[in-house]
């Protein structure tokens, strides 16, 4: 997926800076202020997006540790027994989530890019060799794989209204389930 939030945020900021802000009525203070706030929030969003997942995992790790320490601290007080039992169940569940969330999103994205490049290189190599026997098989495989991926790409962009028949494209939530 090439059309990622980073490039979208950057181009919106440039349009706001170069075109929209200079065109705003200087005497409309509310519009001036809100346009700048919009840009500020976009900058914040751009900084936050790449870190958000790590931030959440980091917080969750600390909360799990806190839960373990609290359980130890209050284990002899009957007044918190019910609450402690619930905390124990949920911290166990949170630990499982952390175990499954080991890869950073940036690592996943990097692996996608590398596999796209490596796959593309194989396709190029096969098509560049007039004697290659596997052309038909490679064509079938890549076309089938692309069909599944492109359906998801198209679904992710549905709100842009490019599709002649948008109802033929399943919602992205369904496709990613």
């Amino acid at each position, binding site marked *: 997926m090439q*059309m990622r939030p980073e490039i979208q945020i950057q*181009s919106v900021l440039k349009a706001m800076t170069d075109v929209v802000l200079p065109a705003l009525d200087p005497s409309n203070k509310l519009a001036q202020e809100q346009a700048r706030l919009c840009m500020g929030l976009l900058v914040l969003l751009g900084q936050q997006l790449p870190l958000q997942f790590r931030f959440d995992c980091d917080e969750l790790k600390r909360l799990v540790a806190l839960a373990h320490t609290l359980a130890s601290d209050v284990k002899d007080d009957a007044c918190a027994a019910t609450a402690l039992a619930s905390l124990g169940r949920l911290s166990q569940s949170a630990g499982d989530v952390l175990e499954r969330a080991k890869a950073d999103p940036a690592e996943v994205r990097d692996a996608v890019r590398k596999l796209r490049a490596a796959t593309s290189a194989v396709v190029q190599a096969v098509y560049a060799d007039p004697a290659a026997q596997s052309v038909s098989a490679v064509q079938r495989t890549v076309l089938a794989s692309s069909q599944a991926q492109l359906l998801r790409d198209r679904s992710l962009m549905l709100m842009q209204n490019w599709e002649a028949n948008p109802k033929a494209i399943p919602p992205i939530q369904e496709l990613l389930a």
Partner: protein
Amino acid sequence: MTTAEDVDKNRPSASWIAALRSRFPVEAEIDRVLTRRMERRAGPAFAPLALDTLVKGVESLIKSQHQGVFEITDARWLSGGASKLQMAFTLHWTPPGKMAQATPMVLRMEPSESIVETSRLREFQLIKAMEGVVPVPPVFWCDSLGEHLPYPALIYGFAEGVTKPAASSSGVSGLGMSLPPELRAKLVPQFVGCLAKIHTFDYRKADLSAFTEPAPGTQCAEWGINWWERVWEEDSDEDSPILRLAAGWLRRHMPTLTRPCLVHADYRTGNFLFTEHDSQITAWLDWELGRIGDPHQDLAWVTSQGFAQLDSEGRRLVCGLMTEADFFEAYEKASGIAVNPITVHWYKVYNAYMIGVLTLGTGYRIARNGKTHQDVLVTWLMGISSMILDEIRELIENAPQGGR
């Protein structure tokens, strides 16, 4: 094989640029503009220009090519188009051999990098060549190297007319336009007739020094693939197996050029003006991708799915005008050129490949480097690429026998 991981495409080295030029031979003028943009890529982002800067540039350009006094008034920005900046103005002057007059004109200038990098000289020569053949706007002067203006530019005159009826709707760049039946009936013969005139025009008699005629055989197709594969190498970020497959497929099935002709390369509804009171086409626009090539390139473009509309009976109308069968029949009759469906199909893959490269590769690169006045628009357009790539997939899957 060089990958995106190995080179810094935002600061390309001279050796990498040279390697791409050698690997992907194209027409000399295409090579010049692509090389120029790569040599300038590490330079600054596009910064908003003052109208006054452009007016001074236009004055300098006109002074260099026109004897006599003149004055520029009413300079103002024009909107529209993802690829070039446009400034309208009025020139008060005395054209050679004519009376003094006030002529409305348009400056059409490239940004630092465009969603489609093309030659203003080729555009200028092509429109000049078409004067008196099909309706075109008058073109006056060309600053092909950006010697007078901040970037290469040309100056042309206004033509009367609209790209769509006042009461119609369409998407970005006039795509998906819906036309009423009575208007279609009047436009169809002109639409087909103009295309036939372009394709049967004797281009060897025109000044087309910025164009190179391909050799008989497959050089035309090969130059075309080289052009866009080179652009993909220069611009792409994430690689795309389906685009790599498409390039390989195109090379394995290159059609032979049997009848070289002028190709408009963006011939469709939305790229001509017509007068609403009599439905006459007054100007064909957007010649920047034109070349000496295969007429099937235009036929494939006209009949591409992206420009089609369904009529009230559910029939698919090419460019919202007529059925594909009616279009091919009328074209053959008007031009005397036989339509080869296998070659049309090849050029459909070729055209979709080009659009895929431009929206996904160039759109990303120029927005990433802040190189245009329309970064937000080219970023928006990136969203259509998955539909285009899926069209490529379908076209290759359904290629006719002999072209598979």
